[in-house]
């Protein structure tokens, strides 16, 4: 059971996750070193953005499976697909050993693009341009 939070609280958490992402990449050049964790953080930012959108409709998903269905049935098709994409990648990153060796900065960039579909104002979209240039 998850405590019910309002839209603003979810947005705060999403921004917080994004800040962690930028910190991670600044200190460790982590997109290369920890692409798996970058993807996980992006997914959790996305999770709070979709929760914020659902909270606006007074919908509060109790668990992951219910969230997936509620996102698909209450938000735009494009947002739902982008969220599914991030969830799939995040689960691969979390559950499978050595998954970090299967991700690279381009995979992280693709995830930021999907986050941008969910939340056009994401701070990571601007940030990704900087780090993409760094790895070019």
């Amino acid at each position: 059971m998850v405590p019910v939070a309002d839209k603003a609280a979810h947005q705060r958490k999403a921004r917080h996750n994004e800040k962690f992402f930028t910190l991670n990449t600044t200190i460790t050049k982590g997109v290369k070193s920890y692409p798996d964790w970058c993807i996980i953080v992006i997914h959790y930012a996305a999770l709070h953005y979709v929760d914020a959108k659902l909270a606006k409709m007074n919908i509060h998903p109790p668990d992951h499976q219910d969230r997936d269905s509620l996102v698909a049935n209450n938000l735009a098709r494009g947002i739902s697909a982008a969220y599914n994409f991030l969830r799939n990648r995040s689960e691969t990153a979390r559950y499978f050993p050595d998954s970090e060796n299967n991700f690279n900065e381009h995979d992280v960039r693709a995830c930021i693009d999907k986050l941008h579909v969910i939340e056009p104002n994401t701070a990571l979209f601007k940030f990704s341009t900087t780090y993409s240039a760094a790895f070019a």
Partner: protein
Amino acid sequence: MKKPIFSRRVVERAVEGKSTILADQDYVRTVTQVHSHRSMDIALIPPFLESEKVRTLEQQLVELKQENQRYREAVRFLLFKTRIALDLTESLLNFLSDELSTVKNVREVFVFKSGQVTNIWIQLSRRDVDSEMTVAETETKIFRLFPKTKLRFLVVPRGVANLSKEVPHSAKRVRLSS
């Protein structure tokens, strides 16, 4: 003079077989006999033909019909739920086959149940944004088709894990045409 239980018109209709009130065959036969005997007045219908018996039978009939209706509705509902439960996996297999057969890099798809959750595991040949997005869009379609079903997707490239070695024996493999 004793008041007639039924009007002459009602009895005549019963004799003609048009009345729904006189459903008791014995009663109809008796009424027929009475009616055919011109000298007898309708008021002379014996007391055992009183409408109470008919009313009781009709009441029982109504109750039985209502009970029968409730039973039929319950059976229909249970059959419907059972059919959904039985057809869910089959419907998913067909849908996934239709949707994913032509998607590049989709190598194998498995469906199996664990408790209340229906798991859908999709093995990709390799990581590819376009293929993954098509799979993600298919997931949205499935969530919309089965909004009340708990579904869990796992989409993994071959380089990360070989799902065919991980799936339970009960898993059903989706037939991919290509």
